[in-house]
């Protein structure tokens, strides 16, 4: 299983920085993708940690919500690692897909491209591939079905336990 854990007792920030950066904020250490700023890490079991880091970047490019922290995207893609652990075909699909993405992106690979527009131009070329479809198709559920992000979008979720909205603003619009 892929786990997300607090790395505070593991690597020091100094150590993390020594191991090289991923994009602007994510680091890779051993099997983990680490976000030192926000103190979380995503441990990969089957996919390469570099692959997981690229998946996180890719996920944000597919559904770019600037108000969402990376950890939500990390949670959203960890299912890819879990599925890769179960099915070798899926592991190949993802690793090959990411390798192809890096190849298309020039010397530094996908994560080194600074502008979203440049990365998206590459994604438009591969959007019909099984790789992209597999990532996007899973992501549309694994990202938007995280209860933690709902309030950020102004969605209140479950309401029965609160007695519905009959006394809580079902008809409170005032600007009309």
């Amino acid at each position: 299983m892929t786990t997300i854990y607090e790395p505070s007792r593991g690597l020091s920030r100094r150590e993390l920085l020594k191991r090289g950066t991923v994009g602007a904020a994510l680091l890779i250490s051993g099997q983990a993708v680490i976000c030192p700023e926000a103190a979380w890490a995503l441990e990969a079991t089957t996919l390469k940690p570099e692959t997981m880091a690229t998946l996180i970047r890719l996920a944000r490019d597919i559904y770019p919500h600037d108000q969402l922290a990376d950890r939500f995207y990390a949670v959203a893609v960890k299912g890819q690692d879990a599925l890769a652990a179960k099915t070798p075909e899926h592991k190949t699909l993802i690793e090959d897909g990411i390798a192809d993405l890096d190849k298309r992106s020039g010397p530094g690979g996908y994560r080194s491209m600074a502008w979203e527009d440049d990365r998206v131009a590459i994604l438009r070329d591969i959007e019909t591939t099984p790789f992209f479809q597999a990532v996007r198709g899973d992501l549309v559920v694994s990202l938007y079905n995280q209860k933690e992000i709902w309030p950020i979008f102004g969605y209140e979720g479950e309401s029965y336990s609160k007695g519905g909205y009959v006394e809580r603003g079902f008809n409170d619009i005032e600007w009309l």
Partner: protein
Amino acid sequence: MAAPYDLNDNSVVVIIGSGAGGGTLGNELAQKGVDVVILEAGNRIEYEEFINDEWESFSQLAWLDNRTTGGGWRVSKDFPNLPAWIVKAVGGTTTHWAGASLRFQEHELKALTNYGKVDGANLLDWPITLAELEPYYAKAEDKMGVTRTNGIEGLPGNNNFKILKAGADKLGYKECHTGNMAINSADRDDRTSCQQTGFCFQGCKWGAKWSTLYTEIPKGEATGKLEVRPNSHVVKIEHDDSGKVTAVVYADKDGKLQSQKARIVCVAGNSIESPRLLLNSASSKYPDGLANSSGQVGKNYMRHTTGSVYAVFEKPVHFYRGTTMAGIIRDEAKHDPSRGFVGGYELETLALGIPFMAAFLDPGGWGRSFASAMDSYANMAGLWIVGEDMPQEQNAVKLHGELKDKYGMPIPDVWFTDHPNDVAMRNHAYTQGEALYAAVGATRSFPTPPYPSTHNLGTNRMSEKASDGVVNKWGQTHDIQNLFISDGSQFTTGAAENPTLTIVTLAIRQADHIAKEMAAGTI
């Protein structure tokens, strides 16, 4: 109290399915003293167990058995194994439905006469008139507690309705209100009033919305004349040498095949499973499937011309709060060919939560355009288009040539392509919906494509002549006297209205007919 019947009891009426058609028919017959066994493929989940969470609820209630799709509709590309969003549980799709309960209009029951021949469409008049249906519509509305009938007040309007109403006023629409809803606006029939919870599609946890699960079925069971057998997935209907149906073979909760003898069989498995069952029951006597001398079983699959318009405003709406579909504009439901199409459509309020909005706003969509739409979720309003689509013979539920279910029966393969009339209607409705929201200050709007079908109709259609359809005006198959169809698959045409009220109406009427014929000894 529920009566357990013996598998060899050949005096019972066996109903396949417990939704709007089957659940209602079962109770109506039981009230008249007829012995009834309802075989329901799904589990019995009481309303307290429903879940206010879109995907979790979907797993709990939706019919997820494998299906395939084909044809030109976008659903086939985006959701190739999910042609329909319907329910596998006791209560059927009445657990999930929105509650909109509209009578058909007179002209819609005579579609061929009133619209004339439409190229490529297989239009036909219903063999019944509105006048014949009216007393039964009245019974159905009373049974279901439909608002704005029987002196029942309308539901209060939520934020999404208020925007719809303001836009309707700006466009000059005259008939806009909070709908004719089978959702209690005040306590009625031992059920509470609507608490404006949202999540109508996930099953009403208050029981404020009518569902056979907690109305018809327990009432029928209380007579001691109705047994509901959940987790009983019917695979085949059997017949004798004379051609009369005699038994229903089903897989029980352990997957073991059982055979329930029957005096009469009523099929109410919704418009995909019902024709599939007739086709899968083919025999040497009926090589093309049961009741299929016309060749129309599975044909003329209709799903209503649907679509949604979502719009973003400068300020918050919180449209997910409150009754999902308590808001309607009926002005476009008329037949007015000057708009460039025959038939009409309704505009009804609709809201989705974040998870389903992501899945359905623009299936397959991604990037900034998509994400920024989601960013505006709290400021969204939305409406659903539901209009009459054209029956077409090639739009059909067929048996898959290779794939089989776990009982060895071919799975359904659902084919659909829009008729040009459907496309013209949808485009008109998109334009009106976008204009409506623009009139109240929308800064952006989204013409959203149809979802997997919730209204599945027409695949065992009703016809005057046996050569044109599968059942007569009572839902009785033209070919087999003791075999009936009791769901929306008997619809000759789809009309513009949400189908449940008409399915219930036909079931009440069919119960009268069956009881009368049983008493007369003719079936």
